[in-house]
């Protein structure tokens, strides 16, 4: 009995194998040289945008056009989902959200190059500089966006990709019940009284990287010279309650009161406070490092619709609601916020102008070397 079927089964296997090997032989070959990868990507992108312009994009479905947007999950994503309903109605499209943190999202669109499953990708850690260089996202002319003219200069992307739709800033957060005199400078983290009470974030997290650069800048270094930063961090390690990798751990450290002070982000500070933690944010005198949260149009996706969605996120009404619900500062200068909100985020021409924008191209170029140095330092 077995023998009777055996030949068929094996034949089937061989055929299927051949088909797949053939299909992928192409793929393997195309990876051999950079040029052929590019042609491959272009053909795919071409066919992709072809379907998009044909009407609905995203393949053969005849349902209303669909736009896939990556978001960061949790309350952030919930708010965006709510706000996006308006967009869905206006343009008669269906919006689907997928949860991906910035770095994961970049890895995903990188693996899907030429044939993306995401149309709009959101970044908060400067990933757009890499995505742009790798030709994964599409540049945007601000004049094409109806809200382009109202943006702060700081919101504009130096490489011509989509502008930031929200600001947050890296400063100092502290537990106001445990610390009576508010810190004023990054230097305060080194104080003896905070021994074992400082939460440090690893370099693999963008907040940790930002802090390292802030410290380097404070000590005369910067993107060109990280050593002063690393030296200062070495001095700071005895003060650390822990060096953590993932963002939720910082919240837990504060909630457990194992840490009472840290270099951290306004948006998170807002969320922590909303969740009932006695956490306050201050901008250090050296200046806060800006986080420029942006939504980018993925190359080869539904580019036209994606551009409209990016523009939608820049609308003053949308940005205002977003600031009120999630604590991220508007990048559209026409947005008016309450005094209370203004105090907890980088708001207004002056504050926004003071945000330090890291040179992401340089940062990304050096990140591998810095990570290695950092890891050696931390594991000592």
């Amino acid at each position, binding site marked *: 009995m077995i023998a009777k*079927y055996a030949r068929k089964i094996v034949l089937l296997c061989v055929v299927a194998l051949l088909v797949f090997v053939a299909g992928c032989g192409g793929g393997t070959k195309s990876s051999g040289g950079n040029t052929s990868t590019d042609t491959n990507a272009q053909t795919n992108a071409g066919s992709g945008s072809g379907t998009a312009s044909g009407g609905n994009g995203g393949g053969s479905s005849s349902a209303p056009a669909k736009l896939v947007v990556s978001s960061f999950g949790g309350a952030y994503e919930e708010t965006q989902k709510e706000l996006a309903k308006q967009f869905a109605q206006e343009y008669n499209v269906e919006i689907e959200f997928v949860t991906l943190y910035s770095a994961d999202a970049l890895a995903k669109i990188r693996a899907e190059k030429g044939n993306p499953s995401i149309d709009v990708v959101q970044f908060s850690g400067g990933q757009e500089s890499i995505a742009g260089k790798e030709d994964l996202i599409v540049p945007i002319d601000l004049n094409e966006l109806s809200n382009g003219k109202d943006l702060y200069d700081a919101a504009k992307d130096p490489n011509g990709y989509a502008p930031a739709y929200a600001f947050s800033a890296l400063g100092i957060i502290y537990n106001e019940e445990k610390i009576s005199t508010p810190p004023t400078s990054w230097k305060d983290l080194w104080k003896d009284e905070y021994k074992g009470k400082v939460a440090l974030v690893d370099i693999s997290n963008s907040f940790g990287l930002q802090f390292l650069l802030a410290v380097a800048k404070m000590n005369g270094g910067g993107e060109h010279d990280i050593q002063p930063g690393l030296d200062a961090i070495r001095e700071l390690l005895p003060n650390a309650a822990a060096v953590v990798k993932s963002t939720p751990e910082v919240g837990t450290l504060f909630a457990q009161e*194992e840490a009472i002070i840290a270099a951290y982000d306004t948006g998170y500070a807002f969320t922590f406070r909303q969740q009932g933690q006695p956490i306050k944010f201050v901008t250090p005198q050296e200046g806060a490092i800006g986080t420029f949260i942006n939504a980018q149009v993925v190359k080869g996706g539904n580019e036209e619709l994606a551009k409209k969605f990016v523009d939608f996120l820049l609308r003053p009404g949308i940005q205002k609601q977003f600031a009120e619900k999630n604590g991220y500062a508007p990048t559209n200068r026409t947005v008016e916020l309450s005094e209370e909100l203004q105090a907890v985020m980088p708001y207004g021409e002056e504050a926004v102008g003071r945000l330090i924008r890291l040179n992401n191209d340089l940062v990304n170029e050096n990140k591998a070397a810095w990570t290695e140095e950092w890891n050696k330092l931390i594991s000592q």
Partner: protein
Amino acid sequence: MKRRIPPHWILIAPGLLVFAVAFLIPIGRLAVMSFQENLPEGGTGGFVWDHYVKFFSDPHYLRIFGRTLVISAVVSFICLVMGYCLAYGISRAKEGRKLLLLMIAAMPLLTSATIRNFGWIIILSRKGLLNELLLSVGVIKEPLSLLYTPTGVVIALVHVLLPYMVLILYSVLEGLDRNLESAAANLGASRFHTFRLVTLPLSMPGIIAGTLLVFSISLSFFVTPSLIGGPKVQLMATEIYNQTINLLNWPYASALALILLAAVLIVTNLYNRALSRSRTEANPFHV
């Protein structure tokens, strides 16, 4: 003329098919990538040995590799001892209780990784439950640093990998012919001798399978070392994650993964040979 296809190929054909499509192709792609240059503008370039050279010439990476192997070996050994005790106990328990005990042993698998590690953080941290307990009993004077250390990683890894060991050992001990044990006992062997000369050799397939399984998984396990070890305890899996997600150096990450795979295949082979040879029971079947 008509040649019959050997039955074993029919039996493994479905598996081979699935693996050819969904494992060999993607991993083959990564293998090719590991010999390609990582271009700064993204994508991969021509053939280079650089990634392997970089790994074997930098003591930093070799240390990570060594630490990974040691931790995995320690985890496998502890899992084996603890798993054997549990599996032996369960297989000797009353029928009605067996499933309950097995389920308790398997419970770590039922909680999502993040949350299980939260539990460990609470227990292991400097002001954690374990330290407080030990301090109050007076066993230690100073709180132990367990969190963010290799010891902590081992404790948490054993916890999540123990179920695999127990399940495998149990299924072997349960299928074991109990009459052989009674025979040995009837012939006057002591409990210890029966165990050493009958039960242990007969459960050798389970021991081999369990330790190799745990060893392999712990090499590539990411979440637990990352959360419990923090940035200080760098292992191959955390380094691969870092290279893949943060530094986007996929060729190097692939090279690391392949080195890991090669190491496991070598270790597995040596281990198999050593143990198969030492087995008292003549079993012609390679496990």
